[in-house]
């Protein structure tokens, strides 16, 4: 059995290799790497089915308190198999779907990167590792949604997905940190084991809410659901992979991961159940406002994610088993239907559900895949969708009388699901054919493999529910509950309330289907939804943010050098003075000997400063400033700092030379253009800054000198560093890392100058 580290190593290596191998085989290469991961994950089934888990050390940083580590348990395994298995089918599909597209390689590279990030996120046993992979999925998704980057709508959708999930990522980080602090470890299993400590922490509730917010953003829960339908700007292979089976379920995954921690908290249960069912109902209602095949599917995905979150929230064993089963079932049929939608779009040139009918004669195999997947989606026996739906109803009925709202809304959601499934199969493929831009026919085999395999898997799993339950559902449910459970999955439960509910669902669903043609225009006409939906709030918020940024930039980055200097000096002065006042005012040093001849140097400095301020031309100002600089150098020299004086001399010489070189390009005798009022303002700023610096210096001098450091350096410079020049020894030895940083800054400044004055650098 392979260590889980291999998943990440192989994924990374495949990402890099995909940038190099011939373009014609890049997608098959992606499929092969996904299959390798799938095979490795299959190797875990036995161990995990027996209730075990596979762990491996990974990326531990003890000095930062990061425990690191990977861990594969039942929940991780279900995700691993879905990610790698569906991934392989997606790569095969993309090979034909995007054949001839020059950007295919980029898509494949980012898809492999995404797959690796997903694998890392679901195997991480450390919140830091998890978070890094979590964010990586958002980043990869940004590039995948924005694949068609010349289309402004695609760019907008990519940015929206990034901003919403990125903001969610920040919330998640904000929640994970207090949890890790409370548990005194970043290890996920460690956090789950330290349950009492985490829950007793004063920030336990806000931390939990932040984690929920992060997961809700990722898994498109109300009110953060709007990005998912918009992300349909992505090419179909991406939608089928990210937006049905994998990335959007990462939020559900993390909620499931943290369920052992919070499952007995009433707040956790009510938030998850409440928002989950609200999301399910919203998604289904919105699905009736769409006719674009992919957007219809995206809205039903929102609904499915809501159902999953709700099932985690309502807690008893049955609902968790239902959640895992539904997760698997949904991945099968939704990925299949997305691929079917892509095929229809690809082969007919249309993806408007209201304009397409009767395609079965032209594309029989596609129709077969769509019909099988739609049966599973509707929850008809003997498909696995039926098993999942029965479980969901059973779990809700188990809750007792309090669950009427959940049951009622859930019933509506399921009936609507039946109707949408009928749209995706019966309406599209049967009836009288309608004219299409392209003459429809079945797509190449590569595009059919995925939907057919997934649709048939839905049937097989439905016929062998015990296998699905024992090998996958029970271990995963045990991981979500934090204790082993036994929920035997059965296709046939006998004649009971649940079966009655199922039958009623089908009847109402068929009725909804028949009304579909009339319902959609009415739902679409509800403009009030567009105006007050969260999507509109997002647009307004984004516009306000950009306006704010523009205002700030206009006022801060105004491009006036004088303005920048004024701001810098004022901030310096105000900050210094405020600090001085808050720390008890300035102090004054004891009087010095005023007969020291060195005072003359200070007088020269003052004269130079005054001459600079009063200079009429720039060149005069430069020369006067030189007087100040050289006076300072002489002061250093006479007070016994030859190194500093030496440096000051050189810097002053260079300064004058460099300024002169610059000034040679300017009119030499150009005089000051400031108005009297501006001059007065500048003088005021200069005066305040000068006073602030003088007061600080005086206060420093009034503080008794602490000789410990200079003594230490004096004693150790020759002994420990073989040098008698303490200044140099500090620079190159004791504080060498600081010096390295400083010369790096120096080099960066030189690069910036060379780039700004590019003409010179090009010669």
């Amino acid at each position, binding site marked *: 059995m392979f260590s889980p580290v291999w998943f990440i190593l192989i994924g990374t290596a495949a990402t890099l290799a995909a940038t190099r191998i011939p373009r014609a085989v890049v997608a098959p290469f992606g499929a092969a790497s996904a299959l390798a991961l799938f095979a490795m994950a299959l190797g875990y089934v036995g161990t995990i089915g027996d209730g075990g888990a596979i762990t491996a050390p990974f990326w531990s940083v003890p000095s930062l308190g990061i425990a690191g580590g990977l861990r594969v348990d039942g929940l991780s395994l279900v995700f691993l198999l879905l990610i790698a298995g569906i991934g392989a089918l997606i790569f095969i599909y993309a090979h034909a779907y995007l054949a001839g597209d020059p950007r295919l390689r980029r898509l494949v590279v980012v898809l492999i990167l995404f797959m690796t990030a997903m694998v890392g996120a679901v195997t991480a046993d450390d919140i830091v590792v998890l978070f890094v992979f979590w964010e990586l999925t958002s980043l990869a998704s940004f590039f995948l949604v924005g694949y068609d980057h010349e289309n402004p709508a695609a760019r907008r959708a990519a940015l929206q997905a990034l901003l919403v999930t990125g903001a969610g990522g920040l919330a998640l980080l904000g929640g994970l940190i207090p949890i890790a602090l409370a548990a005194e470890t970043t290890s996920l299993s460690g956090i789950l084991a330290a349950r009492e400590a985490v829950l007793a922490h004063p920030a336990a509730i806000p931390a939990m809410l932040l984690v929920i917010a992060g997961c809700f953003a990722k898994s498109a829960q109300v009110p953060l659901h709007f990005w998912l339908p918009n992300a349909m700007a992505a090419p179909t292979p991406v939608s089928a992979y990210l937006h049905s089976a994998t990335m959007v379920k990462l939020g559900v995954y993390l909620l499931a991961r943290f369920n052992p921690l919070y499952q007995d908290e009433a707040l956790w249960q009510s938030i998850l159940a409440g928002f989950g069912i609200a999301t399910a109902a919203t998604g289904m209602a919105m699905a009736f406002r769409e006719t674009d095949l992919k957007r219809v599917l995206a809205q039903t995905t929102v609904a499915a994610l809501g159902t999953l979150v709700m099932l985690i929230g309502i807690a008893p064993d049955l609902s968790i088993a239902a959640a895992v089963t539904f997760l698997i079932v949904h991945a099968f049929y939704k990925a299949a239907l997305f691929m079917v939608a892509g095929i229809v779009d690809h082969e007919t040139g249309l993806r408007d559900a209201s304009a397409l009918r009767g395609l079965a004669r032209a594309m029989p195999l596609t129709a077969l895949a769509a019909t099988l997947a739609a049966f599973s989606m509707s929850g008809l026996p003997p498909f696995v969708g039926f098993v999942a739906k029965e479980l969901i109803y059973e779990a809700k009925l188990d809750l007792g009388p309090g669950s009427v709202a959940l049951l009622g809304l859930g019933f509506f959601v399921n009936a609507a699901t039946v109707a949408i499934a009928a749209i995706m199969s019966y309406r599209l493929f049967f009836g009288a054919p309608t004219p299409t831009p392209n003459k429809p026919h079945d797509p190449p085999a590569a595009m059919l493999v995925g939907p057919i395999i997934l649709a048939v898997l839905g049937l097989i799993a439905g016929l062998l529910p015990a296998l699905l339950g024992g090998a996958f559902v029970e271990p995963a449910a045990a991981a979500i509950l934090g204790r082993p459970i036994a929920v035997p999955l059965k296709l046939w439960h006998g004649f009971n309330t649940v079966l009655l509910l199922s039958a009623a669902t089908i009847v109402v669903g068929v009725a909804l289907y028949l009304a579909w043609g009339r319902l959609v225009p009415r739902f679409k006409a509800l403009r009030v939804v567009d105006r007050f939906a969260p999507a509109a709030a997002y647009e307004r918020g984004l516009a306000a943010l950009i306006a704010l940024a523009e205002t700030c930039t206009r006022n801060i980055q105004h491009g006036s050098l004088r303005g920048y200097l004024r701001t810098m000096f004022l901030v310096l002065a105000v900050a210094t003075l405020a600090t001085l006042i808050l720390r008890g005012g300035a102090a004054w040093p004891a009087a010095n000997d005023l007969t020291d001849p060195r005072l003359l140097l200070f007088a020269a400095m003052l004269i130079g400063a005054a001459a600079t301020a009063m200079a009429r031309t720039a060149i005069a100002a430069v020369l006067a400033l030189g007087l100040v600089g050289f006076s300072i150098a002489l002061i250093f020299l006479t007070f016994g700092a*030859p*190194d500093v004086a*030496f*440096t000051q001399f*050189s*810097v002053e*010489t*260079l300064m004058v*030379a*460099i300024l002169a*070189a*610059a000034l*040679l*390009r*300017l009119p030499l005798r150009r005089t000051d253009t400031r108005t009297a009022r501006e001059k007065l303002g500048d003088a005021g700023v200069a005066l305040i800054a000068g006073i602030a610096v003088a007061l600080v210096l005086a206060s420093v001098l009034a503080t008794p000198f602490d000789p410990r450091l200079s003594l230490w350096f004096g004693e150790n410079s020759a002994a420990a*560093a*073989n*040098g*008698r*020049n303490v*200044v*140099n*020894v500090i*620079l*190159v*030895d004791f504080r*060498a*890392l600081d*010096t*390295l940083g400083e*010369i*790096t800054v*120096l*080099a960066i*400044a*030189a*690069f910036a*100058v*060379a780039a*700004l*004055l590019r*003409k*010179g*650098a090009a*010669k």
Partner: protein
Amino acid sequence: MSASLILRVSAPMLLWLPLAASLYVLLRGHNEPGGGFIGGLLAGVGLIFHAIAFGAAPTRKLLRLAPTSYCAIGVLLAAASGIPALFGAGPYLTHLWWFPDVGIVLPLGTTILFDAGVYITVVGTVATLFLSLMEEETL
């Protein structure tokens, strides 16, 4: 830029004297006033004299490499001087010393590599600043 005859004749001296002095200052820096930073500035002064006397292009030719390359080489040299310490002696940038006896005891340390890195970076920065400014036609 046209310079006076006096400047053009004395420029070679104004280049090589500061350069020689700068190397002396660099080498003695560990025990006497001096070091890489001051040495680099001095060498920069020499280069500036050369550029004022003969123009920017001959100075660039004299430097052979682009001035910014000196910055990069300097930073890399200083950064590399800390690497030998990683093989056992201690944390990064712990300087190592040898005292080979060649008639007199010659103290050699990795500090000089570090200081030479500082020197080269400073020379490169001064040259970049001055030459770029000189060649800029409109400011």
